């Protein structure tokens, strides 16, 4: 028995004791193959998944390395079945290879004939494969390259894609490093992507993913299609590209709801591509509008499902995915792996930490007690009404007023879901309300005023905060909300709240009604935030005066 920081559980979770002196080394060593699942204060939980192991294989790690790492850092003996499982899982990657055959075109070749036999008999790949060229090789219909990769991953034999890429229409793109330089990890990320062909680069928020994308474009020197989440992001990409590369404004087109330009470098939003009219995607032709040499996917973890289907047809083009996390709420990590590519680069943990990913805010849950009359209404209401009744209690308004007063000198956002509640809050707090019906212009004006410090307090609806990049605040107070994607919520939280200039910790208040479904929802989120390493406290509304600010 050694005194390692890692405890390997038989259910394939790895527990890392972070106060251990070797925790940093261990974290670095296991990061390539284990997914971080929870990171509360003392023990971080990683999980070994087939995808994680295959990612490691794609990055050039072999099973022996993984096993040795586990054995080296493990405090206790490592369960034997787990080691066997790791070796077996990793051995599955690369038995099948997609290759370009000089005479037969795209083929699936194997180094292990029984595997090919098994695959040929699998229902999932029916119709994707053509005739058998020799015992170890079978022709693949060119149009099925993506679908086949998806299907193979599902049956547990992920194929390595060596079939190469089309070069695309050449277009000169260079980085313009006159007044800045690419950071080392950005350069490494772009290079490992380029050598791998296609794949995903994982970098934390604010680590300069755009520049990795730009650098990849400079490698490709070809026309590029960039897919981003929203219009604001599209503009940021454009500005950044103009500033950092040899591209000029005229060479970059925006393809969104408002503008439809197709230029050598085109930035499109997921939304416009996935817009469906009369059962068809009218803007799908953009993908074939030019002979793209490179496709950049921003925020891969948010990639909508239809984009996967479209991507399946783009397997001959180089693809780079940029994201802060590979974890997807919908569990489609496998599609990212098979369609865009394996993880090509992962930022060292230390960098992530310095980016403020961990514990950027102090989360406080304030519990209010429903007054007796509202409690009665709540108890007798229909289940679908309960959440609204619980979250719109008038007690919350009083508590929010208290909280706002405590942080009178800090920029504060009040976030809610129900318009009537927001209006009531707006009136009570004498603050402007931004909701779905507020015009874009008015919205921009208010946000600008908030940024400049003119406005200290905004009441915003969930709708508003989905569509527009919210300005930073030091204090956020959430009074109601359907907690959609928890991952997204945490990211938004991290982006929304920055520590104050005088070093004050940013505060995130959530006001919930005790003993109602509101509190139940809050419990899930409390767990999630705690797992993400946010400091979390629960106080009763009556105890607010005791809170230190």
């Amino acid at each position, binding site marked *: *028995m050694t005194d390692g920081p890692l*405890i*390997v*559980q*038989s*259910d394939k*979770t790895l*527990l890392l*004791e972070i106060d251990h002196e070797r925790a940093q080394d261990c974290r670095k060593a296991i990061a390539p193959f284990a997914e971080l699942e*929870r990171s*509360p*204060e*003392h*023990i971080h*939980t990683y999980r070994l998944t087939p995808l994680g192991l295959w990612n490691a294989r794609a990055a050039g790690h072999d099973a022996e390395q993984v096993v040795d790492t586990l*054995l080296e850092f*493990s*405090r*206790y*003996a*490592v*369960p*034997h*079945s787990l*080691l066997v499982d790791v070796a077996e899982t990793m051995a599955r990657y690369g038995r099948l290879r997609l290759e370009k055959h000089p005479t037969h075109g795209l083929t699936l070749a194997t180094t292990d004939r029984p595997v090919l036999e098994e695959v040929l008999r699998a229902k999932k790949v029916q119709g994707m494969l053509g005739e058998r060229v020799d015992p170890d090789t079978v022709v693949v219909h060119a149009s099925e390259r993506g679908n086949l990769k998806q299907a193979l991953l599902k049956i547990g034999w992920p194929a390595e894609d060596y079939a190469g890429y089309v070069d695309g229409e050449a277009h000169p793109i260079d980085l313009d490093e006159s007044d800045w330089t690419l950071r080392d990890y950005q350069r490494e990320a772009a290079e490992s992507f380029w050598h791998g062909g296609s794949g995903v680069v994982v970098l934390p928020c604010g680590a300069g993913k755009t520049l990795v994308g730009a650098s990849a474009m400079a490698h490709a020197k070809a026309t590029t299609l960039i897919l981003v989440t929203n219009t604001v992001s599209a503009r940021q990409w454009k500005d950044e590209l103009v500033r950092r590369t040899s591209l000029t404004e005229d060479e970059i087109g925006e393809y969104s709801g408002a503008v439809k330009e197709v230029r050598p470098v085109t930035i499109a939003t997921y939304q416009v591509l996935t817009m469906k009219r009369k059962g068809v995607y009218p803007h799908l032709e953009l993908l074939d509008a030019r002979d793209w040499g490179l496709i950049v996917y921003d925020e891969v973890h948010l990639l909508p499902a239809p984009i996967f289907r479209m991507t399946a047809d783009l397997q001959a083009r180089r693809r780079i995915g940029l994201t802060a996390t590979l974890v997807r709420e919908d569990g489609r990590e496998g599609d990212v792996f098979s369609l865009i590519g394996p993880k090509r680069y992962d930022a060292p943990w230390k960098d992530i930490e310095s980016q403020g990913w961990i514990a950027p805010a102090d989360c406080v849950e304030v519990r209010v007690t429903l007054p007796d009359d509202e409690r009665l209404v709540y108890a007798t209401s229909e289940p679908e009404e309960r959440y609204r009744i619980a979250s719109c209690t008038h007690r919350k308004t009083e508590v929010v007023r208290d909280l706002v007063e405590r942080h009178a000198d800090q920029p504060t956002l009040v976030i809610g879901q129900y318009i009537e509640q927001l209006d009531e809050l707006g009136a009570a707090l004498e603050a402007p309300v931004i909701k779905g019906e507020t015009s874009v212009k008015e919205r921009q004006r208010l946000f600008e005023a908030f940024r400049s410090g003119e406005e200290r307090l905004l009441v915003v609806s969930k709708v508003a905060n989905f569509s527009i990049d919210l300005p930073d605040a030091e204090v956020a107070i959430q009074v109601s909300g359907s907690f959609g994607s928890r991952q997204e919520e945490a990211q938004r939280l991290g982006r929304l709240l920055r520590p104050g200039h005088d070093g004050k910790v940013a505060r995130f208040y959530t006001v919930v009604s005790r*003993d109602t479904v509101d509190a139940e929802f809050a419990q899930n989120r*409390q*767990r999630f935030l*705690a*797992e993400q390493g946010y*400091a*979390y*406290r*629960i106080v009763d509304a009556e105890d607010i005066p005791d809170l230190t600010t």
Partner: protein
Amino acid sequence: MSAEGFRTLADQLRGWPDARLSRLLLARPDLATPAPHDSGQLASRAATRSSLLRALDQLTRLELCVLDALVVAGQTTRAELVSIVHADPAATTAALEHLTDLALVWDSPTGPRALSGVAEGLAGGPGAGVSGLRTRSPEPMAPEVVARRLDELSAPARTLLEHVLDHGGEATTGTSRHTVSPAEAATPAEELLARRLLVPRGGGSVVLPGEVGLVLRGGRTTTDRVDDVPTLPTVERSAAMVDKVAAGAAFEAVRRVELLLDHWGTHPPAALRSGGLAVRDLRAASVLLHVDEATTALLIETASAAGLLATGHAAEGEAAWLPTDELDRWSTRSPAERWWVLARAWWDSNRLPGLVGTRDPAGKTWNALAPELSGVHQVETRQLSLRELAALPPGEVLASGTGLPALVARVAWLRPRRPRTRADQVAWALNEAEALGVGGLGGLASYARALVGGDETAAGVSALDALVPAPVDHVLLQADLTAVAPGPLESTLAKRLQLLADVESRGGATVYRFSSSSVRRALDTGWSALEVHDFISSVSRTPVPQPLTYLVDDTARTFGSIRVGHAEAFLRADDEAALSEVLHHPRASSLGLRRIAPTVLVSTTPLDVLLPRLRELGAAPVVEGPDGTVRVARPDQLRARTPRDRRPEGLRAARGSATVSAVVTAVRAGDRAASSRPTGAGQALSPSGSLAALREAVETGASVLIGYVDNHGTRSERVVDPRSVEGGTLTAHDHRADDLRSFAVHRITSVAPVAP
């Protein structure tokens, strides 16, 4: 051994020193039970077929080959024997010595000799050491003669001869003449027969004499060497690494057995009627333990072999698999000792958990714990395989890919006469050893050497204790409401924590999760919030996170705010004074009244008793229905329902007449039968017939003559007046005794009317 040899085996045994004799009895234990009277009996017992076969099964391929060569050679000398076995002479001599030790070979005055039963016992192909050559002729041709005659043969004859040699040394000749001279030979077969290279044996068949075969194979019984022991490919792995991996498996195996048996103690799986464990239960166990079904089956079988699991009766009385009381003793020991118990049980177990989940030849799935799931050779194969692992040089382990087939080949060489499933059995032995932590990475754990060495005590395994996680006495609490015990918790601590939190992940460490329901569970068993706080802060090395403190307080706040109790009836009144009056009435004490609110009393007396009693006390209660309405009741007037026959008149009449006519038909038929039967007194009747006759007599009051067999079996005839027939007993007035007597109806053999 004397140079001039012995007259018989018995003589030889008589001449052996005691040490050598006891070696024989150790190697062939069946010779010693029951103890033979003398060497003669010992020798004859050694030559019995069953004992011989048992001894042959224990031989290596080389030894079998030597024995085979001895049979082929017939009368031979030691030197000649060594020359015809295709092996290193020293090895052959050693093998011969071993065969002598086993009393399979003895030294006759003319040279070594195999027991006569050996030739018959040698069976199987070259793999089992059988050359396929016949015994040499009593007066064999000299090898030079054979060689010369072979040279004279035509090519087809030579081919034919080689064909016969490769196919058992026996053939039928068809039309060939058996007595021809070489010059007259017309066919290849006749050529061979003429030169006595094939010898007629009668019945149209010919055999190839051993001496010819020997020459054909270059003067030896086999063309291939028989002393090539298959080598085991190895790779380097430090012993420490092997120990670490194996100890991990050992700890996991022990932990899983304990977890499973603990679980089965409260949720026992049913025992199938055939004695096994249902597939569904195996699958559930596999999910519980986080291992595949094969490993689960192994753990279950091992627990059963160790006496920790047996069939018993569950709460409802049905047969179930239950942990034994041995489990309680076992659980208190150290992990290493617990492992030793399991490993020892496995080492000597003839069970075949590797078969679980596969189908038997009849297509039935093998269930774990099924009684027939055992194999006689499993123990031997397992022990042989692991001894081979133990014999590997230090720092080397079996190579991962080629190691297993090589080990199978090695075991096949060591015990060639074992069945064909050997490859599976060797693979199982290795897999099971790794799953139980006896070995790992293709090597044997150092602490398991005592096991392989046949040590009966657990002295050697203390090394394992140093390799498994030491118990810890604290947990780390985190804000996401988990507690991580970074090692196995001390058992009292673990039990308490399990009450307070749910286990989320197991292994070297345990992750617990607190939730309001888990905290409530603890409160349910009588903890107070304060105790929970104290316990949590005492086991935690780190400050208790605020959300956890809050969770406990919040759960305690709502705990018990609603009280539940049992009552038969309630009394409700807006007038509190009226209730007080009832409650304090001197005669109300027996009603079990209790005030639970100013306007509500509850009573332990049921409503139908309570109501008249309350009226007696002068109250005027009304009964409230479940919906809150008042129920007034007047005394019930009882009425029965008018029976109604819904069938139409015509049908009823038709049915009635049909029934009657059927009865009539039956009666008439009965009468006809009775009349055609010959009548006579004392005629035996069927039981129902005698009953009918007796009943009839009861009804008519007639006297009957019955035949009766009494307690002593004596048959007598009596005249009686039956009074009643009931419960198998006839009560009747016996004319002879002039008294009432009882007769068992089944003893009445005949009933006949007596003429009045």
